[in-house]
């Protein structure tokens, strides 16, 4: 059998194996494209958690009550933790965290485009929790059953914490909408700015989504972008009603035949422009990440140097003994 034929056979076995809902583990043979696809997806997800600390971190020192400050600190801390689990999951596929972080710093890796928008008021912290974390949960719950074991296991833990994040965001919005006119206006303004970018978090429409078909076959992805987007909207509309907020989509309307909401088309030109770097905060987010990394270099070097000195000291003590 030629090498090519042998690989084709292994690939066929692998496809059948994951299609039967079995889990692939780090030491199993896997197609190179599967490995690359997962590294790309898991590291993008990790980068999103880490870059996502910036817009919310922007309000840590200005949270309006001590309870809110505590919750926001816990949330941003969770995001850093999620970033770490996900980098670990990606490392099981053979790319180190240093390499992955370097890809981000070089601008070679992407992260969720939603974080290229600024958090301008306190209500943005609420809107992110309510909408962005809702969208993230819808994207992530199916990943708890994803075919790659380490990713699926990381997602189970992450999803539990995300649902707390979503609830705290919704609660911020609820309290604002029970408050003064200025607070209600703040909440509506945040919804107006975050609605469409959140709707776009599920990616381009199915007919324009280049990576979807093979990720579905491999059980990395289980639902299409448009299916998840519909779920998000059907879930958000009644929540907005409870809040007394108006979703900024004139075409939004209940469709009795479909038993779902019809909605307007997001501005996909804007979406692709932001993905390609032309969003309000793309440069600021990446510059911040790179600056922090560079500024901290001396401290990381010191920790390494100290560890090396310590082990040399231990070794010389041992040889003297």
């Amino acid at each position, binding site marked *: 059998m030629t090498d090519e034929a042998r690989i084709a056979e292994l690939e066929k076995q692998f496809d059948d194996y994951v299609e039967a809902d079995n889990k692939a583990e780090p030491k199993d043979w896997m197609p190179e494209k599967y490995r690359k696809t997962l590294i790309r997806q898991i590291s993008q997800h990790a980068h999103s958690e*880490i870059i996502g*600390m*910036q817009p919310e*971190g922007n309000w*840590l*020192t*200005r*949270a*309006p*009550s*001590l*309870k*809110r*400050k*505590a919750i926001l*600190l*816990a949330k*941003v*801390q969770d995001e*850093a*933790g999620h*970033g*770490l689990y996900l980098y670990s999951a990606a490392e099981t596929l053979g790319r180190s965290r240093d390499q992955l972080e370097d890809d981000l710093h070089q601008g070679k890796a992407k992260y969720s485009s939603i974080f290229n928008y600024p958090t301008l008021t*306190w209500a943005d912290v609420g809107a992110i929790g309510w909408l962005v974390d809702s969208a993230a949960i819808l994207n992530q719950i199916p990943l708890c059953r994803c075919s790659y074991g380490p990713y699926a296991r990381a997602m189970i833990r992450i999803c539990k914490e995300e649902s707390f994040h979503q609830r705290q965001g919704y609660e*911020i919005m609820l*309290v*604002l909408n*029970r*408050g*003064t006119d*200025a*607070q209600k206006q703040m909440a509506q303004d945040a919804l107006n700015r975050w609605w469409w970018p959140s709707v776009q978090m599920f990616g381009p429409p199915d007919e324009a989504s280049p990576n979807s078909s093979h990720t579905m076959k491999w059980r990395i992805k289980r639902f299409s972008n448009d299916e998840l987007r519909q779920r998000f909207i059907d879930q958000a509309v009644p929540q907005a009603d409870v809040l007394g907020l108006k979703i900024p989509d004139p075409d939004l309307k209940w469709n009795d035949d479909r038993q779902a909401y019809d909605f307007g088309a997001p501005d996909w030109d804007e979406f692709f422009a932001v993905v390609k770097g032309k969003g309000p905060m793309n440069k600021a987010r990446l510059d*911040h990440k790179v600056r*922090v990394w560079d*500024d*901290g*270099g*001396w*401290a*990381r*070097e*010191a*920790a*390494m*140097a*100290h560890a090396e*000195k310590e082990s040399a000291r231990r070794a010389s003590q041992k040889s003297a003994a």
Partner: protein
Amino acid sequence: MKDSDKKQGKSVVNDDVLTYCLRLGDNAMVTSQRLSEWVRNSPTIELDIAFANIALDHVGQARMLYSYAGELEGKGRDEDSMAFLRDEREFGNVLLAELPNGDFAKSVLRLFFYSAWVLPLYEGLNQSNDERLAAIAGKAVLEVRYQLKHSAEWVVRLGDGTEESHKRISDALIELWQFVGELFEADEVENRLADAGIGVDPTSLKGAWDNTINDVFARANLTRPDDDWHLTGGRSGQHTEHMGYLLAEMQVLQRTYPGCEW
């Protein structure tokens, strides 16, 4: 003793405990504020997590202390009124806590100095005749023990690590040393509370602090400056010029939208 004297005695103690809780609460609050600034800005993701975690512990301590202070005062002020609606001159934290973060070396050394002081302070308060204070301190001791260990480890790494890290932490040491003496000063409030077995005499903390610092400095190749001249004023609300900016940022929403729920 006449009844009126007793009442007066009780209210003096009450006022003293109130002042004391606010000072302790302000130390925790201001420390938390500075630590929060590091989150998303530190040298590693692990350090972001540690800073967030320690900041969160301090918010928790501040909330307990402020709530108790509000109850003692009995005028309906809650934890948020204490944090967001008092002015700079009413804050009684030590100056060390409010200084700008500077680089990582300065922040780590400040956290270490502060933790080496506040740990024996909370350990002492855990034995307080005031049960509520004792309970708050008991919870805080566990948190502060971790942050002392964490910051001490970093002081050693930086002091022993590279030429650059050694220089940075040595520079930080010179800058911060003038704020250390204030930690061990006592005023009348603290003396009365120490006599009543409610508070801890700050001068009594010096020995434990010295031991911790000497031990860690020996491992970090750092030498204590021999100049003990120091700045003071935090307890009586005379702060550095940095404090106003810290509060302006922290209090902005409560001040801009008075009387709102958040």
